[in-house]
C-alpha cells in the first residue's frame, strides 16, 4: 500500500507514463485510485487538464474553419462551444 499515492502519480508522469493505465502499472494503484488522485492533483493545480480536439470546431480562418464567432477555435482551445462527443483530454504537470 502506497504511503504517498499523489507523489507516486506525479513520479509516474515524470517517469514517462502516457496513460492512466500506465500510471496504474507504475504506481500499483487501482484504476479508481488513479482517477481520484489525478482529479485531486488537477484541483490542486499540480496537474493541468486540457480538452483537445484534433480538428477545429468551426468558422474562421483559411480552409479549416477554425474559429467560432470571431474567436479562434484551434486545438489550443477546442472543443469549441458547438462541439460535443469524445475529446482528447491532455494532462500535464504544472511546474
Amino acid at each position, binding site marked *: *500500500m*502506497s*504511503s*504517498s*499515492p*499523489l*507523489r507516486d502519480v506525479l513520479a509516474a508522469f*515524470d517517469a*514517462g507514463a*502516457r*496513460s*492512466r493505465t*500506465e500510471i496504474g502499472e507504475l504506481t500499483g*494503484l*487501482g484504476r*479508481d*485510485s488513479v*482517477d*481520484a*488522485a*489525478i482529479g*485531486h492533483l488537477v*484541483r*490542486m493545480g*499540480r496537474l493541468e*487538464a*486540457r480538452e*483537445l*480536439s*484534433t*480538428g*477545429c470546431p*468551426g*468558422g*474562421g*480562418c*483559411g*480552409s*479549416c*474553419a*477554425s*474559429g467560432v464567432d470571431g474567436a*479562434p*477555435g*484551434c*486545438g*489550443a482551445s477546442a472543443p469549441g462551444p*458547438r*462541439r*460535443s*462527443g*469524445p*475529446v*482528447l*483530454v*491532455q*494532462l*500535464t*504537470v504544472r*511546474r
Partner: protein
Amino acid sequence: MRVPSAGVRRPNDRTSAATPSCHSDGSAPAAAPGSPVVALVGPPNSGKSTLFNAVTGGRRTVGNWPGTTVETGRAAWQLPDREVELLDLPGAYSLDAHSPDEQLTRDLLIDGPVVERPAVVVVVVDAAHLSRSLYLVAQLREVGQRLVVALTMGDVAEGRGIGVDSAVLAGQLGVPVVPLDPRRREGGRRLAATVSQALAGPARGPRAVGERDASDELAVADERFAWVEAAVGAATSSPAEPPTTFSDRLDRWLTARFVGPVAFLAVMWAVFEMTTAVAVPVQDLVGNFFAGPVTAAVETAFAGVGLGDSWVQMFVVDGLVAGVGMLLTFVPLMVIMFALLALLEDSGYLARAAVVTDRLMRAVGLPGKAFLPLVVGFGCNVPAISATRILPSARHRVMTALLVPFTSCSARLTVYVMVAATFFPRHAGTVVFGMYLLSIALIVVVGLGLRRTLWRAVGEEPLVLDLPPYQRPTLRLTASVTWLRVRGFLRTAGGIIVATVTVVWLLQAVPAQGGAAFGHVPPDDSLFAALARLVAPVFAPLGFGDWHTCSALVVGFVAKEAVITSWAQTYAAADPTAGQSPVELQGHLHAAFAASAGGATVAAVFAFLVFLLAYTPCVATVATQLREIGARWTAFGIALQVSLAWALGLAVFQVGRLLG
C-alpha cells in the same frame, strides 16, 4: 460570519428555522423550530440528491445560501425518535475550497465554531468510486464530528466486480457505514436509525493523523489519500484483472507500439482512397455544370445588357467562373473528406491517432506537446501556429511554429487531388496518401535537424493523454462539423481567392508590350506571362519551368487553393473550355509538364508535388508566424521552406529522370 438574509435562517446554529425561504418552492415546511440539523455532503454524481429526495419524500426548500450564489436544499426528515432538518449541501470532492461550493461546505463543516456546525454529517460515498468519495471522509475525520457514511451505487460497483464489505469499511473509517440504494428507496430507514443513534451519542474524536508537514499542501493531501487507500484496500475486493471494456480491447491494438501506427496509416489511406474514388467523378459533374449552364447563363446575361465579348464578360467568365468555379468543383471532395474525418473524431478514433502521433514525436526527440499543433496543422496551418501558445517554453513555440508549415493542410489537398487525378488516375488516393506520409517525414527530419543545430537543450515534459471511450458517431454532429469546415473552405473561395483571381486576371489583361488592347491580350504576351517567365528559370532544373506552372506556384503563395484557380485562368484565357472543365484542364497540364520535363513527366510531377508540400503555405500563415514568433524567425522559416522545397524538388526530378 455571513449574515443571513431576511426569511432565511442559517442552519448552522444546529437548529432549524420555521420561516420558509423566499426561494422556497412552498411544497414543504422546514423542520420544526429547534430541530437538529443534519448535513448531507458528497461528491457530485454520488447519488446525494437522490438520497435527499428519497428520505424526505422529495419535499424540499431550495434557495441560495445567504451571501452566496451557492444553492442548497433543506427539508424535514423524520427519524425514528425525532424530526431533523436535512440540509443538502452542494456536491464537493473535498473541503479544500477550490470552488464556491466547496468553500461553503468548508465554512459550514469545519471552519465555523463547533457549536454552529451541523449535529451530524452524512457523507454520501459512491461504492463504485470509493477512492474519489472517501477523501471528504478523511478530511472530516480530522475534526471532532458526528459522521455517518451512506454507501450508494453498490449495484454499479457489483457490476464492475467490486465487492465492498461495509462492516470492514466502517471499522477502517471509524464511522458507521450504511449501504443503501436511494433509487429503489432501499436503506432509508437504516440510515435514519443510524443517524438517530449518532445524534444520541457523543461526537467521535479526530482520527490519528500520520506524520506530515501541515504547511505542505501535497504532503497533507497525500496522507489523506494514503489513509483512504488503506481503507479501500482492506474493505474492497476486486477481480485480479479488472473487467476490460470494449474501448480497452480496441485500444490494446489501436494504440500499440507497432500495430497502432500501421492501423493509423491504414485508416488514413482508406480515407484518401474513399475521398478520391467518390469525389473525382462528382467533381467532373460539378465542373461540367460550371462549364455548361453557368457559363452559358453568364454569357447570355452579358449579351442581354450589351456587354457581350467585353472585358467585363471576360473577367467574369475567364476569371471568376473559371477560377472560382474550378475551386468549387472541390467542394464534394472537401465534404467527403471532412465527413470521414468528423466520423473518425466523433467515434473517438482520432484521439488514439493523437496518441500514436505523440509517440512518434517523442521517439524522434520532439517535445511531446508539440504534436498537438502539428495535428491541427493538417487541417489548417494558421490555427496550428496559434496553437503553439499551449507550449510553455519560447523555444518550443518557435521550433513548433517552424515545423507547422510542413504539415500538409487541406488547401494543399485540393492541388494533390487535381494533380494526382490528372497524372495517376488509378492511384490518386495512394499518391495523396503518400504526400501526407512525406509531410510527416519532413516534420520529423526538419525537427531533428533543428534540435541538433538550434535547440540542443529542448527537453521533454511529462504528458498523459486521457482517452475518451469509443462511441457510435452521430449523424447530427458529423453533419454539423462537416458543414462548419466546408463553410471555411467556401469562405476562402469567396474571399481571398476572388481577390487573387482578380489580380491574376488584371495582370493577364495588361499587355507586356504595346500592340494589344486591355483585356484582349494573347496569354503568352500578357504582363502575367512576362513576370512568370522571369521566375521560370528557377524551376527549370526541377522539371516544371513552364510559365503557367511557375505562375501558379507564385500565386499559391497567397493561398494554395489559388494554384488551381491560376491554372484554370491562364489556360482558360487561351482555351475557354480549359478553365471550365477539369478534363480539358488536365489535357493542358499533361502537355505543359511533358514539355518542361523533357519527357520525364512523372519525375517532374512528383517534384512539383514535393515543392508544393514544402514551400511556404500561404500569406495568412506568414502573418500568423510574424505575430507568434517575430520577423526574424519568420524570415528564417520562409527561407528554410523555400530552399528545402527547391532542393527536394531538384533531387526528386533529377533522380527520377535518371531512374525513369
